[in-house]
């Protein structure tokens, strides 16, 4: 049960992110909810790679019993995927916030119920 704790935490953060995105009115809070959902995704990626009693996946000066098979290292590919996903998240956040700035300048409001000139 304790071994599953990271995945339960992923679920809690994801649900917090989804609830924030659905229930908040201020559009910057909605984007914060999106950031929470991204954090949950990255956390899931890192948590999948974890192995109990393992070291970081670096071969230089690693203790001998961790290299001989069965090699006990944490998975490295998910860490690469997480870094890529964090960078994509930063780029998306920059684009979304610049859109919000342009909308605030032209509409004058940040209320998502008023940003609905395109409807029907």
């Amino acid at each position: 049960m304790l071994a599953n704790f990271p995945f339960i935490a992923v679920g809690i953060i994801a649900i917090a992110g989804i609830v924030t995105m659905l229930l908040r009115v201020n559009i910057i809070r909605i984007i914060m909810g999106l950031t929470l959902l991204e954090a949950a995704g990255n956390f899931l990626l890192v948590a999948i790679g974890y192995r109990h009693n393992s070291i970081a996946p670096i071969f230089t000066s690693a203790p001998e019993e961790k290299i001989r098979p069965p090699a006990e290292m944490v998975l490295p590919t998910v860490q690469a995927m997480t870094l890529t996903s964090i960078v994509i998240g930063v780029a998306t956040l920059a684009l979304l916030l610049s859109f919000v700035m342009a909308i605030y300048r032209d509409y004058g409001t940040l209320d998502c119920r008023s940003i609905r000139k395109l409807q029907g």
Partner: protein
Amino acid sequence: MNLDSLVKHSPALVVALPLLLAFSTPLWSRFNKQLRNIWVVAGMCMTTLLGLFMAYNVLRYGPITYVFGASDPTQTIPHDSGGIPIRIIFNVDAMSAFMVIIIAIVGLATTIYARPSELRRKGLNSFYALLMLLIAGVLGLVCTGDLFNMFVFFEISSLAGAALVAYRIDKGIAVEAGLKYALISTVGGLFFLIAVALLYGQYGSLNIAVIAKMMQFTRLDRFALVFITVPLAMKAGAVPMHMWTPDAYSRAPSSITAFLVVSSQASLYALFRILFTLYNVTLDCRTFGWIIIILGVLSMFIGVTMALPQKTVKRLMAYHAISQTGYMLLGVGVGLATLCDQDKGGAFDVCGRTAMVGGVFHIINHAMYKGLLFLTAGAVIHRTGVRNLEELGGLGHSMKLTMVFFIIGALSIAGIPPFNGFASKILIYESVFMFSPYLAIIAILVSILTLASFVKVFHSMFMGPKLPKFAEVKDAPTPMMFGMGLLAVMIVIGGLFPTIVTENIVEPAVTALTNQSAYIRTIFILP
């Protein structure tokens, strides 16, 4: 550099060339603006030729694989890896070649069309850079054989597309459309990433062929399938996740809208790739087939009924894009629902395969006629400055050639012979009727309503007496005519000679899509 090495490296070149164009365009504009325009158009021509050349080679000689970072690009399994492909691999088979053909042709038409429609704007550097980035992203999405690479290209095309939608700020309305598109695409992409994480955690690999070989349909795989299917269907514009489509398509510049249609279809390709190549017969064919069929039928019906009351030209056409996506989902959904029945004389042979051929054929037809319709609407808006159908009228006197292109596009989307819309629709009607008659009846009804709404648009825009406020409106400029003419020629050829398209491009694509073992064999080649 001889032709063989060009073929061998073409999957990487076809993504690298638009990327190079995207990042070098702002440099050229420091010297001369005309030079930058010529650079972009010439570069896009070269990308189109390269894409068509690669597609020809794939259709003639078999799939091309490209391994990034290996000493020899075709060596998929390194000798010390224990028999597992470990690098990012681009696997271009017949279905990918089919999508590359569509992207190449519509991308060329878009780039040539975009020149005069943006002449009055500033910030054209960013426009061309983002357009090339969007083209690179979509080309990478259809060529890749690696799940996480698919996610990265999916995000590239979403972000570039959203920035292009918001390009003409239009007092903030276009930015609102761009914000909605970016927000919902990012959420979809995140669920795709969660699904990739679940699949990696179980099978230990990101390569589609490796996971396909080891796939057992556990409960986590069901979650992963739903987390992949629904966001990709949302990106393609399926109801009930379709509401971003009219906003984004109506506010983007018209050339970009024609390419956003292709970007939506690339997401549809990704959906089919996952359903057919990754999962294939291991999934519950009838359940997931019927989920896709229900999404398709809802899209068709709600798309066309929401289109009739619309008052803006491009919003109406965007709802029709949703409706036609429903046809593709219906055709391929029927193919998926009968996939488990693949012995001789089983349901797949009788109606499933023809439905899939119809659905996939509809993809290329839709890209052509929808692109033509959006480009025509853009030409009218460019000349008159008016978007609302209530205020237009009588343009048939002055914009004759645009009217002819519009008629070709409208008859094609309504499924009137002899254009190519009818050819794919008859395949879908006949095979879906064998599967379940009610679905075919709904499809025919939707086709009638499509014709009704395009008669409305045609009358409002082109018929009637010449209005005094449009007295000095001339016909569209020549580069726009060239872009529209290219797509119109493709429509007429596809309509008069449908067998050329189905036999050479569509049937190999459907065979490659349903034949999972051939896909696995192209990666797991023994040295």
